């Protein structure tokens, strides 16, 4: 084990396996692999309290974002509204469950799991929960973090509001509601949350024990 300590100044590129010496970085700079341009590491700026605040804000705005209608159309006197979840279920009900599931996971389930996962990690770090149950939970959450982050596609959904609104305006009058505003705010909060979050820094709390 101790021979690795000689190597702690070395980092390997995850894309091309080049060995690179690690240096201290100025803030808001990223180290890039000299051979293949993959990002090696960022300067570790990762505020636990800031993330806690963003998580709570995201949790609160998550409720109206998913319960209030995001789009509303008026067509020959009849009004139709839909929420994000209803839209996914509507496709599912037509028999296209693969599409329905993909929409549900990308727009509702993955963001919810992402917020709860980061919230749990922040609480474990902040309260310094040392019991082996908490430590195992923390490791499991970190292992799955990359997958969940990749499945969260709120930014794409926000663009799809615009595209749908333009397409539907061909036939009918289209209105945005409070749900659209809430959903866009949810996207903005999660965007900042993911900027603040640094996976390597979160892993370093495991190293300290």
């Amino acid at each position, binding site marked *: 084990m101790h021979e690795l300590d000689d190597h702690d100044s070395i980092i390997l590129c995850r*894309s091309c396996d080049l060995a690179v010496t690690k240096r201290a970085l100025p803030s808001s700079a990223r*180290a890039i692999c000299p051979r293949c341009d993959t990002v090696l590491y960022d300067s570790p700026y990762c505020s636990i309290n800031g993330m806690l605040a963003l998580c709570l804000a995201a949790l609160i705005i998550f409720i109206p974002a998913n319960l209030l209608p995001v789009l509303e159309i008026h067509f020959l006197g009849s009004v139709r509204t839909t929420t994000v979840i209803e839209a996914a279920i509507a496709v599912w009900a037509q028999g296209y469950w693969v599409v329905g599931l993909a929409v549900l996971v990308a727009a509702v389930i993955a963001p919810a799991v992402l917020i709860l996962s980061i919230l749990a990690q922040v609480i474990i770090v902040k309260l310094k929960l040392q019991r082996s149950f908490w430590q195992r939970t923390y490791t499991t959450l970190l292992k799955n973090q990359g997958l969940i982050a990749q499945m969260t596609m709120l930014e794409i959904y926000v663009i799809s509001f615009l595209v749908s609104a333009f397409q539907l305006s061909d036939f009918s009058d289209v209105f945005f509601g409070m749900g659209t505003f809430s959903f866009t705010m949810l996207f903005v909060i999660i965007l900042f949350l993911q900027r603040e979050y640094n996976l390597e820094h979160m892993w370093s709390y495991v190293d300290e024990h």
Partner: protein
Amino acid sequence: MSIDQSTAANKPVSQVMPRSENPPKHLQGNQLGLCLCSVCKKLNVTRNSHCRRCFSPLSTRNYASVQQSWALLVTATILLVLANIYPITLLTNRGVVTNDTIFSGISHLVQTGMFPIAIIVFTASILVPWLKIFGLATYLAAISFNLPISKRKLMVGFHIIEWIGRWSMLDLFVISLTVALVNMGQLLDAKPAPAATAFALVILLTQLAAKVLDTRLLWDRLEKKHDTN
């Protein structure tokens, strides 16, 4: 986000601490007996069987990943052809039923003069999936057949593919919103059609193909030929 200034701050290890009289130009982790944990990216000694931080099994290279990636890519290509041929939505407008494929939907947008939206949809539903498949195929071919393509350019392309691939989901989101809103029977009604499932699977499979691939294999293969691009 000053990216450029930090590039110079990092030097390959071989330049900083020469290990032999005649050090190789680029020293790789597997030559030093080191590897990254595939789950948590912690530096480990190759000799150990499990990561010292997260206890996942260690492996230096995943040689099977090239085959897995090819298999996923071929499946995705077949499905993408189907997704383009079959209709993706079924629109009933005052009793008249029209089948829209991905392409006819976009040409309809162009005819009604919504160019910016047409460009967004064209990029997300046609350009991105095809670029992704051709890009990944080039990348895999460079590994499998040792093609003399600049490794650095391939790697930049790979990162772009990884990042942009998710945007294909746009079309599915739009379909789900449209189907949920437009349901007024014979007057105006939108329903999904078979290509939607094929398209969803294309996105899933191409994302998997990129995720599964061990990109370090590219740099190993060409390193043997002392090609440093």
